[in-house]
């Protein structure tokens, strides 16, 4: 118990003192997960919206596959990305293994299905409400997509947030393709794992607190943003 309170006290000192090592790890985590999220949103949102609106042969199977991919085990994703980027892999020449870029790729693979699948449901609900009116106004499905994404923006923001939560809290994939190299690929989750194993609970706790705080901050921000935009439109 004494050790735990000692760890808490040291963790708070690290946080309040804005420890440079702590900030470096937090900063890299945000850069990696933020970039992965941005790319996953650019790819996943249109895919989800298109699956909601277009009718084509195999659509049902595509939806089932997408939903299944939401549960991709991070270590399997890490392994696959590792194989692709390793010396024997097809993208070996890019020399991305054990770099933040490899971690971005792994998280992108992991969260794109989440963003796509959840946004498909949001857009499908909206499409069932809008379809007749938009078709009556002369909107083709292609023209309807940006309208649906815009009008569903509040719900989609929550979807994107779910993707970020999955990315920033994930450890299995980034540790395989990033290697948890100090000052290079060490992010919050891999650092927590390492420090806990080493018995340095203070840094692990500090990072854990940051992770929880981030989650709260993002949720509060989205909530405020949603309320503000709902008032305007």
């Amino acid at each position, binding site marked *: 118990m004494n050790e735990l309170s000692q760890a808490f006290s040291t963790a708070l000192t690290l946080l309040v003192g804005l420890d440079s090592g702590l900030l470096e790890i937090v900063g890299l985590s945000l850069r990696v997960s933020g970039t992965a999220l941005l790319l996953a949103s650019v790819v996943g949102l249109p895919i989800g919206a298109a699956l909601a609106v277009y009718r084509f042969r195999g659509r049902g199977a595509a939806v089932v596959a997408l939903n299944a991919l939401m549960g991709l085990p991070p270590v399997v994703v890490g392994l696959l990305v590792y194989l692709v980027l390793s010396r024997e892999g097809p993208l070996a020449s890019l020399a991305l293994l054990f770099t933040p870029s490899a971690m971005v790729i792994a998280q992108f693979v992991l969260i794109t299905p989440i963003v796509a699948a959840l946004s498909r449901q949001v857009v499908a609900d909206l499409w069932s*409400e*809008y379809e*007749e*009116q938009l*078709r*009556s*106004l*002369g*909107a083709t499905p292609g*023209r309807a997509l940006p*309208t649906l994404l*815009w*009008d569903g923006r509040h719900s989609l923001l929550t979807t994107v947030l779910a993707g970020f939560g999955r990315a920033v809290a994930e450890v299995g994939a980034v540790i395989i393709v990033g290697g948890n190299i100090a000052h290079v690929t060490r992010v919050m989750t891999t650092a927590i794992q390492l420090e806990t194993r080493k018995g340095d609970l203070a840094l692990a706790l500090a990072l854990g607190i940051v992770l929880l705080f981030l989650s709260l901050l993002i949720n509060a921000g989205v909530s405020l943003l949603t309320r503000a935009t*709902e*008032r*305007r*439109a």
Partner: protein
Amino acid sequence: MTAGASILPLVARGLVYQVGGDRLLGPIDFELEGSGRTIVLGPNGAGKSLLLRLAHGLLAPSSGTLEWRTSDAAELRRRQAMVFDRAVLLRRSARANVEYALALHGSRGAERRARAAHVLERTGLARIGDRAARALSAGEQQRLALARAWALRPEVLFLDEPTASLDPAAARRVEELIVEIGSSGTAIVMTTHDLALARRIGDEVLFLHLGLLKERAPAADFFAAPGTPEAQAFQRGELTW
């Protein structure tokens, strides 16, 4: 109304709509010739809304034909509009809703803004043009839906129970607006259960029962002397299904 050759008449021949083995409408034959206000009457389940959706192109007939004067799909889409019983408004301001519809019809920049401002003014919505469309009252929402459709200068405007969910005052304002739109040269085809409304504004009545067109007559004749037992029962309030 848009200038240029008319898309009317609309001619239906042997029009049938069915789902699975259930025939919900038809066979129906009719011809819609020109301007004026055509009221589609009938009890619940008569097929009124189906007929409007088929005519507007939102549904495809199971058999039979529905032909306009032109077969140019883009032209047909441009020259007709529809307002539903519950206004479907986008999550943006009232003005942006109108401008969105105009943008889909190719209207740009200052012309689009001017047209939107004009119809909002004509429909009494100018002062609330910047408010969120979905925050408006039901009556204002329905007038906005009408304004959005009117902005497109349709030659034919389909209205599916436009006053069904409104209180008497809001329904009255919507009715006035429908009359004004009709007076501007747009042909109105409207479904309603409201016999008083149909009597007040209808030029012609199509009476449907159980998916079949039972009677077609000038509104004055239909209300003075309905020609079928079903229409007579409907007017007495005895035909509910």
